[in-house]
C-alpha cells in the first residue's frame, strides 16, 4: 500500500522500467503547458499550486505508479509529440489503457486542442472501443465564475460536432470536468476517474453502504492518505464541500502526525504486519506502528471521523447529529466497532491481492 517511488526525492519512475503488469494504465494527454505535470505533482507529490510555475516541460513519456487499493500506472505523454501520427505505433498503448485523461487549458485558445482530442478519440476508439476519455477543462480558476460553464459547454459542443463529422457520434465514453490545482476540484475529478477502474468497486460500495446504515453516517469515503483521493464512497449523492472538508481532515491528521507523532511516513512495518493488527509484537523495544485515528467535532452536531484501516488507506465518515444528543463516547465506540468490521470486510475482498 504505497507508492512505488520510495525515496524522498519522489521521482517519477522512468518510462518502461518498473511497469507493473497487472496495473491499470491511465494516459494523460494534452497540449504543451496544459497542466498535466502540474496535476500529477500537485496530487501525488504535494506540490503547492503556485510552485507549479517552475515545472519544466516534459520531454518524454513519464510513468507514475500508484499502488494502493488499485494499482495504476499514470502515464504522461508530453504535448509536443504527435501520438496519433501514423508513424508512431500506439495501437498497443491504447489497447492496454483503461482511460485517457485529456487536459485542455481553459485559459488558452482551445480550438486546436479540441481538434487534437478528436484525433486521439478516433484512434483510441478504433483500437479499444471500451476506452473512456475524460476531458479536463483545466486551469478553470482563471475564468470568472459565470464564464466557466459556458466554456465547458462550448468545448463540449465543438467536440460532439466534430465527433459527428467523423462518424463517431455513437462514442459515449467521453466526459467533461472543470478542474484546477488551486482548489479541491482536481482531487474530486481524479477520484471519480480512478475509482471507476477498480474492479471490486461494487462490493466496496456495498460495504460502505452497510457501514453508513449501521452508524447513522451522512457520507463515507475510503481515501488514500497520501494523495487524499477517494477510491470509494457510499452510494448517496456526493456534496463536493463535504469531500473537501474530509480532505482537509486528512491534511490536518497527516500534518499533525508528522509534526508531533513522529514517523508515520516511515515504511518500516511490512504490509503483512499492518494487516494483522491484533498480532502486534508486545516487546517494549519495538514501538508498534499505530494507525491514525482522528475525531473532530464541529458546531451544529457535525462530527468527522477518520480511521486508518489499512496502511495509508483510511475510512472517513461525515456525521451530522440529528440533535437527539446521543452520548458522544457511545457513538464513537460504535463507530470504532463498525470500522473494525469494515476492515475485516475489506480484507476479505482483497484477500487474494494482499
Amino acid at each position: 500500500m504505497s507508492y512505488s517511488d520510495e525515496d524522498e526525492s519522489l521521482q517519477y519512475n522512468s518510462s518502461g522500467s518498473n511497469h507493473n503488469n497487472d496495473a491499470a494504465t491511465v494516459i494523460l494527454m494534452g497540449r504543451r503547458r496544459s497542466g498535466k505535470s502540474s496535476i500529477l505533482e500537485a496530487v501525488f507529490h504535494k506540490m503547492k499550486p503556485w510552485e507549479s510555475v517552475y515545472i519544466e516541460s516534459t520531454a518524454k513519456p513519464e510513468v507514475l505508479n500508484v499502488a494502493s487499493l488499485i494499482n495504476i500506472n499514470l502515464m504522461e505523454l508530453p504535448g509536443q509529440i504527435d501520438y496519433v501520427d501514423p508513424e508512431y505505433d500506439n495501437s498497443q498503448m491504447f489497447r492496454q489503457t483503461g482511460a485517457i485523461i485529456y487536459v485542455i487549458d481553459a485559459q488558452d485558445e482551445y480550438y486546436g486542442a479540441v481538434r487534437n482530442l478528436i484525433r486521439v478519440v478516433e484512434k483510441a476508439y478504433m483500437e479499444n472501443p471500451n476506452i473512456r476519455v475524460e476531458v479536463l477543462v483545466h486551469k478553470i480558476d482563471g475564468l470568472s465564475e459565470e464564464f466557466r460553464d459556458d466554456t465547458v459547454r462550448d468545448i463540449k459542443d465543438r467536440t460532439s460536432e466534430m465527433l459527428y463529422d467523423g462518424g463517431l457520434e455513437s462514442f459515449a465514453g467521453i466526459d467533461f470536468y472543470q478542474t484546477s490545482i488551486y482548489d479541491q476540484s482536481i482531487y474530486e475529478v481524479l477520484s471519480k476517474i480512478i475509482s471507476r477502474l477498480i474492479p471490486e468497486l461494487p462490493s466496496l460500495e456495498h460495504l460502505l453502504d452497510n457501514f453508513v446504515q449501521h452508524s447513522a453516517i451522512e457520507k463515507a469515503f475510503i481515501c488514500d492518505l497520501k494523495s487524499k483521493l477517494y477510491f470509494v464512497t457510499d452510494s448517496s449523492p456526493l456534496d463536493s464541500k463535504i469531500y473537501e472538508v474530509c480532505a482537509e481532515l486528512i491534511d490536518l491528521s497527516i500534518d499533525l502526525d508528522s509534526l508531533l507523532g513522529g514517523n508515520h511516513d516511515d515504511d518500516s512495518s511490512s504490509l503483512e504486519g499492518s494487516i494483522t493488527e491484533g498480532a502486534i509484537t508486545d516487546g517494549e523495544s519495538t514501538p508498534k506502528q499505530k494507525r491514525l485515528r482522528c475525531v473532530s467535532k464541529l458546531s451544529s452536531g457535525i462530527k468527522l471521523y477518520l480511521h486508518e484501516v489499512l496502511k495509508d488507506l483510511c475510512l472517513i465518515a461525515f456525521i451530522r447529529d440529528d440533535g437527539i444528543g446521543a452520548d458522544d463516547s457511545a457513538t464513537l465506540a460504535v463507530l470504532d466497532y463498525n470500522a473494525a468490521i469494515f476492515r475485516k470486510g475489506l480484507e476479505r475482498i482483497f484477500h487474494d491481492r494482499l
Partner: protein
Amino acid sequence: MSYKNILLMGKSGSGKSSMRNMIFSNYSAIDTRRLGATIDVERTQIRLLNNLNLSLMDCGGQDSYMLNYIKAGSTKLNNAELLIYVFDIEGTQPKDFEIFNLILNTLKNLSPRCKIFLLVHKMDLVNEEEREKVFLDFYVGVKSSSNLKFFLDQNNVQCAQTSIWDESLYKAWSQIVGSLIPETQALQKHLKNLGNIVSAEFIMIFETSTFLKIATHPNSLPKDEQADLDSITQRVSGIIKNYKKSVEKISARFRSLTLYANSKSIYLDNLTDNMVIMIVIPDSKIEKDINKSTTVKISEEKYVQDVIKRARKTFEKLDFSGKK
C-alpha cells in the same frame, strides 16, 4: 471601552495589509495577491482575551500618506501603544529610512512610551542559507539609525523576520500579542499543574480567533529545544487555522479534535471563550496501565476531557485585564 492603539506602518507594498488580513481576517497567503494599495488608514478593532482591546491602524504607505501622518496636528501618532513597522527586504531604499526617521521623531514627541516592533518582511525572497545573516545585517543597519536610539535606550524595540509563506508570520505576531498581554505568570502556573495531571509532553494555549500562541508548557527550555517547540507551535497554529477556515465552507465552526497519531495522543479543545488548549500526551505514559483496545482509548479521551472541563473554571477566572 478603552483601546490600545497599534500602528501598522511601512512603505507601500511592503506587505502590511497582507499580514493584517492573514492574522485577523483568515486570508491565506495566496489571497493577499488581490489586495490593492491601502487608501489612508484602515482601522480594525480587535478583542483578544478578556478585555484586551486593540485598535489596529493599517496606514497606507504611499509617500504622500506617510508625510501626512507626521504633519503637525496629525492625531494618528498620538497615544500609540505600539508601532509595528514593516520593511520589505527587497524593496527598501535609503529614502524609506528618511521617512522612517521622521515617523520616529514625531512619535518620540507624541508617544514617547511607545513600543516599537520592526518586521523585516518578505524573507522568503532571500535564499534560505543567507536569511539569518541578511536579517541580522539589516537590523544592525536600522539600529544605527539615530532616531531609533531614543526607543532602544528604553529597551522598547524588538525585531523579527517574517514571510507570509511560512510560520515566521505567526511567530512574530505571537510575540507582538504576547508583548501586549499583561502578566502571564498565573496562566503559566495553572498550565504546569494541568501538565502534571495528564502527563503531558507539552501544552499550548492559542487565542481563539487568531490562533496566535498565548502560552506554552513547558515555558522555559534549553535554547535549542525551545526553538524546536516554538517552531512546532507556530506550525500547529497554521495547520489548525487552515482547518478552522475550511470547515467554515460547510457553515460550521471548529469545536474540538482528538488525534491518535503514531506515538502521541493530541487533544484540542476550547478552554474559554478566548482560548483553545492543545495537549500532547506521549503514548507510553498512558499505555502503561491500560490494554490496547480501542474502547479503552476512549476512556483516556474521557479522562482528558474531564480534566479540561474542570480546568475551564480556573482559566475563566484568570482575568488578564485585572492585573493591569
